[in-house]
Every structure is written in C-alpha cells, then in structure tokens.
C-alpha cells in the first residue's frame, strides 16, 4: 500500500464531503422504487427460511419463477436479522455511492497512481445521474462497486480474491457481471501477461455460478426481450465524457494495464442496446477512470516544463479543477424529439441545495402497511393498483400481492384482482371503476383510506392463498458462504 499524500487527501475529502451531505439528506433514501423489489425478495427469503426458486410474494397465488441472483438479498437478509427492513433499504440505497467511490479510488491508486485516483474520484462524483443510479439500481450498483475490486485483484495477481469477487458479482445481477467478464476477456486478448490469470478467474467463477446459470438458462423463455427506452434518449455529462475519450485513446497508446479500463468501457456500450438511459448513468464508472488517467497525464505534462514551481502548480491545477467541476456540470440531453445543452448541478451541489425527491416511505405508505397487516392473515393476498408500493407493503408486512415488479420476468398466468382478500385502489382507478363497472364494487367492504388510496375487503369468502415453496439453499448456509467469501478475501490480502 502506498503512503498517503496530498492527492489522497483531496480524494478522501471529496468522498467525505459527498458522504456527509448524503447523511444530511438521509430523508431521500431509499431513492425511488427499485429497493422495494429487493426488500420484498429479502422478506420472501426470510419467510421461507432461505433461497427459493419461485416468487410467492409477487403475482400470488401462482407466483413466478425467481431468476434474480441472490447475493444482494443474502446481504440484506443478514442485515434484516438485526435491523428493521426500512433501515436495511435505507442503508443499501445510501451506501452504494460512497462504496463505488472507495473501490474505484483503491483500484486506480494501486494500479495507476495517486493523482489519477484523485481525478477519477473527482470525475465520478460530478454527474448526479450516476449518484442517483447508485442509490436506485441497487444490484447493478453493487456490481459497479465490486468491478474495480475485481480489476484490482486481477492486476495484483490475486487469484483467490479475483475468483471470490467475480463470483459475488455474478451472483448479484443477471446481466451486468457479463459486461465485466467481456472487459476482462478483451483485456486478456491484448495483455498476454494477465491472460492465464483472467481465464482461470473467469473459468472458476462461472463454474461456481453454474447452479444459478443453469436455473436461468432452463427458465430463459420467461425473460422478456423488451428494450427499455430509446437509444436517442441520453444524458451526457460533457466534462467526464470529454476527458474520458482522451483517456480512452491514451490507454490504447500506453497499452499494458491501461487496456483494462478501456476494454471495460467498450464492453459497457452493450448496455445501450437494452437500457439506453441506464448506459449514460452507469458509464460514469468506466469513463471516470479513463478521464482520471487523461487529466492526471495532462497535469503531469503541465508541470513537466515548470522546473521551479512544478509540484505547487500541479497541485493548484488539481484544486482549481476540483472546485470548478463541483460547480459546473455542462450536460447535453437528448430525446427523440429534441435536445438541449444545460448546466446542471453536480452531485455535491445538488445535495447541498437539496433539490432531490424525498423517499416514497411516507406516512401514507406506512398507513397502507397498517391497513394490510390489520385486515389480512399472513397467507392472504392483497391487490394494489401500484405494484411498486405493493412491494414496499410486502417487504414490511410479509403479505403477498397479486401484481409485482421486475417486469423482465412475467408470470405464466396472471391472477385477476378478485382473488385478493384486500383490494387497494388509487382514487383515479376507483372513480373509473365507479363509472364503468360499479357492480365490481358491490361485494366490497370499505376498510380504510389514505390521501391517494382506498382499501376494501372482500365480503365473499376468498380461497386463494400464497404458498411458500421449498427452500433450495437454507439461510444459515448462505450466511456461512458469505462470511467464508469475506474470510477468503481477508486471508488472500494478508498473505502478501
């Protein structure tokens, strides 16, 4: 480990300031709705007593095949043993940004140098859409946290660490880890020195991932092939992208270990095919490393000719850039019908001003949870017109819902809302129902109301019940495996 210097101080300062500001804005966490899906999976695993291969908490009573890799849910499940589910969700949503800052800081610092690592941290902190996506797309965010660590282990020739980290990545998300693999394979093609290690790493990791991979492949017909958004929908943060492209070309010219971030970035382009909008957020990881490399080299080139005050001048440039990049973030936004250049607030500025949507955990959603819990038994099913709020209710009450999230996987048969014991309609839906099909409301008993929702109980007997499937991997074994992995990492690091 290199000794700390003033560039480390700047990088740590940025991480500390953004983390403290996030803590100050804790009411925004968990950001948006994705975490509710993960919270409901965690709750489902907890009720079942381990990992199951069938969602019984969504699309009840029939459920659907469970294809989401379970690593994040195992971590959340362990936390849930000691903390309330809302706190678990808040922590997971909050922690991913500082973690990716730290992991990229470590990788670049150890493989390149401390100046490059400072510029990388600076650039990754600029785009607020990356901050938001880290807090929002929790499983992908965890993959992005693990990716620089996989790269670091590969560069340091630590086979055990690279296998453990790569396996963790594979068990976290269904598609993102394969982008990491693609980057590593391209790197192995170009860098003969690391070829053997990379092939060993990927070979063993995919072997360890084989059980889940087979499960996904067997049920691959359940996965929807839909593309989300259009390629013309973009949000380009011009500063990181400009320096990133310079870094991309520079890495190709420098070769050796410089190839890896370039190959990783090129592999990321495939996200454009499926999730165009997400590409412009997730790309920040790759583009920041490349941008960090180019900015650091530009600074070196400036101080090279300044014999007397070189180091002071270089550091001053770094400080000035740090201030400027945290004030100005020119962004080019496009949609299929137009485009615009705008100056957006960078992450630190946005958090400082507090222009962020508050969390969806509100007194209203808590009241809905109370209504569901009081009016249903644990095996009874509820229906709500907004399935994302449904996931939140499931994660806090344990009751299964008729609809669900993560629409990439659809159930074979959808159950009509009439199978639910409790029905929660948003007011607009209820008005429509009253006007168009009032007979559907005839057998319903009003049980509660919030600002936007009204809840009814079925008067007639309802037979549909959620059924818990057989556990394929007990909770306790999952925790043992998790801690064995962490122990393996510690052992491998200490060995050197």
């Amino acid at each position: 480990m290199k000794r700390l210097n003033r560039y480390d101080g700047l990088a740590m300062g940025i991480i500390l300031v953004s983390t403290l500001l996030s803590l100050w804005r804790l009411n925004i966490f968990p950001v948006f709705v994705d975490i509710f899906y993960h919270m409901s999976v965690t709750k489902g695993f907890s009720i079942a007593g381990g990992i199951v291969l069938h969602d019984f908490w969504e699309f009840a009573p029939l459920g659907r095949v469970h294809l989401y890799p379970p690593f994040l849910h195992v971590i959340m499940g362990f936390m849930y043993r000691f903390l309330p589910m809302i706190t678990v969700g808040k922590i997971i949503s909050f922690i991913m940004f500082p973690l990716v800052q730290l992991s990229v800081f470590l990788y670049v610092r150890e493989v390149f140098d401390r100046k490059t690592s400072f510029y990388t941290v600076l650039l990754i902190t600029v785009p607020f859409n990356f901050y938001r996506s880290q807090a929002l797309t929790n499983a992908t965010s965890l993959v992005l946290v693990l990716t620089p660590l996989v790269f670091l282990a590969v560069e340091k020739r630590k086979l055990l660490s690279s296998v453990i980290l790569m396996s963790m990545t594979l068990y976290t998300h269904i598609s993102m880890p394969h982008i990491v693999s693609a980057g590593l394979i391209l790197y192995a093609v170009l860098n003969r020195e690391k070829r053997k290690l990379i092939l060993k790493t990927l070979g063993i990791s995919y072997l360890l991932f084989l059980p889940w991979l087979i499960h996904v492949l067997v049920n691959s017909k359940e996965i929807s092939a839909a593309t989300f958004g259009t390629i013309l929908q973009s949000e380009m943060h011009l500063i990181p992208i400009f320096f990133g492209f310079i870094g991309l070309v520079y890495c190709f010219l420098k070769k050796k270990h410089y190839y890896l971030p370039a190959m990783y970035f090129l592999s990321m382009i495939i996200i454009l095919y499926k999730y165009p909008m997400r590409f412009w957020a997730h790309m920040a990881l790759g583009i920041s490393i490349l941008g960090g490399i180019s900015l650091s080299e530009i600074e070196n080139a400036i101080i090279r000719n300044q014999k007397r005050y070189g180091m002071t001048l270089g550091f001053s440039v770094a400080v000035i850039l740090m201030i400027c990049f945290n004030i100005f973030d020119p962004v080019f936004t496009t949609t299929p019908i137009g485009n615009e250049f705008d100056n957006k607030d960078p992450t630190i500025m946005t958090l400082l001003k507090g222009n962020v949507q508050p969390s969806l955990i509100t007194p209203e959603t808590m009241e809905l949870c109370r209504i569901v819990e009081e009016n249903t038994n644990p095996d009874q099913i509820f229906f709500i017109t907004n399935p994302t709020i449904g996931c939140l209710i499931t994660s806090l009450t344990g009751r299964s819902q008729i609809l669900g999230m993560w629409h990439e996987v659809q159930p074979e048969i959808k159950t009509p809302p009439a199978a639910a014991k409790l029905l929660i309609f948003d007011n607009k839906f209820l008005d429509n129902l009253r006007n168009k099909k009032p007979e559907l409301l005839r057998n319903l008993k009003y049980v509660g109301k919030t600002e936007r929702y009204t809840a009814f109980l079925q008067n007639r007997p309802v037979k549909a019940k959620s059924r818990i499937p057989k556990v394929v991997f007990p909770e306790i074994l999952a925790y043992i495996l998790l801690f064995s992995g962490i122990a393996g990492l510690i052992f491998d690091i200490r060995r050197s």
Partner: protein
Amino acid sequence: MEREDILKELGIKEPGKEEIESILEKEDMDHLVGGKKISKKKLSLAFIGGTLIFILLISTFYFLTSSSEKEYRDQVRIFKKLLKEKRYEGKDVSHVIDLSRKAEIAYRNRDYKQALELIKKAIEELRRL
C-alpha cells in the same frame, strides 16, 4: 520536469536508486516512479483522437435529435421578441403577422417543415423592416 531536476530542487545530491523512488513517491511524483515518463506525443495524439470522438458523438446525437418541431418553437421565440421590438418602433407588421399565422396553421397540421420555412420568412421580413 526530470528526476534530476526535482532532486536538485529538493537539495539532494547523488542519491541511490531506492532513495530516489522514495523521495519521488513522497513528493507526489508517482508518474516518475519506476521510470514511468509522460509521452508528450502519445498525450497529444490522445487529445486529438479523444476530442474527435467527443465531437463525433455529440454531433451525431445532435443531428439525430434535432427536429423541425423544436427548431420551429425556437424560431417562434425569436419572432415574438423581434415583433415586440418592431411594434415598439411603430412599424407596420400586419403582413408579417399574416405569415406567422400561416406558419402556426402548418404547425398545427404537423407540417413542421412548412411551418419552419414560413416562420423563418416572417423573421426575415421583420428584420428588413
């Protein structure tokens, strides 16, 4: 700045190799540690190449997403501003208003190209007044 210059600046005479590495690392000169030097040629090439890719990306997206509809709305903004100025100067703008009405009808009929042509013509007329 070369290693020798830095060492001279730091007032150190003829240090050993290990000492040099240690001093350079301490003094934030990671890029010189292990003989890693900046290649000006490579950096210049990267700067040119990177800038070209950047311009290519932005311009591609700009042209793919520029629409006559948006351009029309931008032109209407200019038109309104100019019209206000000319009215203030007491100029007769009735024939120009006629053109802008035709443009608005074309816009409502989703004939954005025609609308754009007409509004541009109206702006030209206003400028001539």
